[in-house]
């Protein structure tokens, strides 16, 4: 055994890795708890990969078979219902924790130099996660998923000049059809995983290169912060967090399995009370509230422009918030809280 390990070590240089784990230290302060959110996202990503591969064993991405194959997974395949339920709920958990991760970094201002690129790659990862959610939502091919996909893929049409092309690219044609299912499936199971691994790799490289960010007030203090060795002390705590999250995931997955409506019909009207996944609700409510025309401009275009501008501002936040500890920084924090409150309010409103 010793010999095998030594051989492997010689070939792979594993010692560097274990040295890294033992020397890496995690700072301790009042906001240490947010450090756990990052690794929790990885946990759910791992669950998504395993359950996703399992579901793909039985799923058929065609207009005739998509809905029926999901029904078969739910009713005939041993434990199929719980695998689909875990996949569906783990997506929700993952996006929820991605959002908490993002908010914790926004409000502790961890995006300040030198971590601007870490922040920006993180936002791209949020976009990829949402794209996973959006493409996955269509695959069961029931009335709800058809209507949601029609709306979601129609939104880019509001963009001048290129909009129609973007919609056609997403749908694989003029309308949402069987071609859209194959397109969404291959993007969901092949393109997006490649993209997420690439960006995640860069993101983690930045995290290691710049080390863990500490809150402003702790950074200002002279004496060195207390810290925790990553291995095994922090890892032990992290494992505890993982087990609690995994337990919660299994619990909701068992008791609240996702439903499956009858197969979507391209010719039937949108079902009443359609709603997208919870993380798109604020956009859904905005699109509903904006009137057809604002000052003579298409209301949809205005809504899309407002959302795009909001996203861009968040993306370049590190370059706007240049003096985080001063008055300008406090104003930006205020605006961030207001935006957060606005998003929550719209989400709750859409549920009423």
């Amino acid at each position, binding site marked *: 055994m010793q010999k095998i390990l030594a051989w492997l070590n010689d070939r792979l240089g594993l010692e560097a890795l274990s040295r890294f784990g033992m020397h890496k230290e995690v700072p301790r302060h009042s906001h240490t708890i947010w450090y756990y959110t990052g690794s929790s996202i990885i946990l759910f990503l791992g669950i998504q990969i395993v359950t996703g591969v399992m579901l793909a064993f039985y799923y058929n991405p065609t207009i005739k078979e998509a809905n029926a194959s999901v029904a078969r997974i739910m009713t005939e395949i041993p434990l199929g219902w719980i695998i689909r339920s875990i996949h569906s709920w783990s997506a929700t958990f993952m996006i929820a924790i991605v959002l908490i991760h993002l908010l914790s970094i926004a409000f502790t201002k961890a995006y300040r130099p030198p971590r601007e690129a870490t922040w920006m790659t993180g936002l791209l990862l949020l976009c990829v996660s949402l794209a996973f959610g959006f493409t996955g939502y269509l695959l069961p091919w029931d009335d709800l998923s058809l*209507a949601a996909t*029609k*709306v979601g*893929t*129609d*939104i880019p*049409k509001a963009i001048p000049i290129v909009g129609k*092309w973007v919609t*056609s*690219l997403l749908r*694989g*044609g*003029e*309308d949402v*059809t069987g*071609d859209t299912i194959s397109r969404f499936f291959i993007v969901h199971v092949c393109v997006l995983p490649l993209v997420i691994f690439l960006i995640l790799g860069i993101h983690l490289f930045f995290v290691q290169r710049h080390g863990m960010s500490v809150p402003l007030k702790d950074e200002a203090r002279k004496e060195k912060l207390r810290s925790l060795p990553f291995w095994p002390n922090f890892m032990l705590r992290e494992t505890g967090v993982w087990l609690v999250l995994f337990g919660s995931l299994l619990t909701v997955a068992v008791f609240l399995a996702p439903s499956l409506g009858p197969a979507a019909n*391209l*010719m*039937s*009207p*949108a*079902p*009443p*009370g*359609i709603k997208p996944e919870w993380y798109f609700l604020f956009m*859904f409510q905005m*699109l*509903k509230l*904006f*009137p*057809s*025309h604002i000052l003579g401009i*298409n*209301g*949809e275009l205005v809504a899309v422009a407002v959302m795009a501008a909001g996203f861009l501002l968040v993306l370049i936040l590190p370059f706007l918030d240049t003096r985080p500890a001063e008055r300008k920084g406090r104003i930006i924090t205020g605006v961030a809280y207001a935006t957060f409150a606005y998003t929550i309010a719209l989400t709750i409103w859409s549920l009423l």
Partner: protein
Amino acid sequence: MRLQHSLFSRRAFLNSILGGGLAAFAASFIGPVVKFIFPPYKEPDEVKLPAADYNALPANEVKGFAWGSKPGLIKRAADGSLVAFVGVCSHLDCNVTYLPADRKFYCACHKGWYDENGVNIAGPPPAPLRRLAVTVDGESLVIKKQG
């Protein structure tokens, strides 16, 4: 004027030839790839339906048909004639439904309303429903693009 020194070294020149050549080679693939991923689409020029199926359609009632991959709706207007619409909301492309009791078309996605002539009257829709032309040709109803 004669320059004393070259503006760039031989190494830089060769590097840019190699790099630029590789980039141009890669770029030559973009066109075909883009062409491939946009499938051709042609809206139907006309759709023929058996007139017998629609003759008995009462006033203020709607019956569907397939306009390519979009839902079409044929409606008996108050004057007894048949009118046809593409049953797709002008807001964000959801399929609309006709509510005979209200004499309105309704889109459930974002609560869009159209009157019985397909004109947008409330909610987010920016334009009326698209009209199609209906003519009778012997035993068939012929639905065509309008105009």
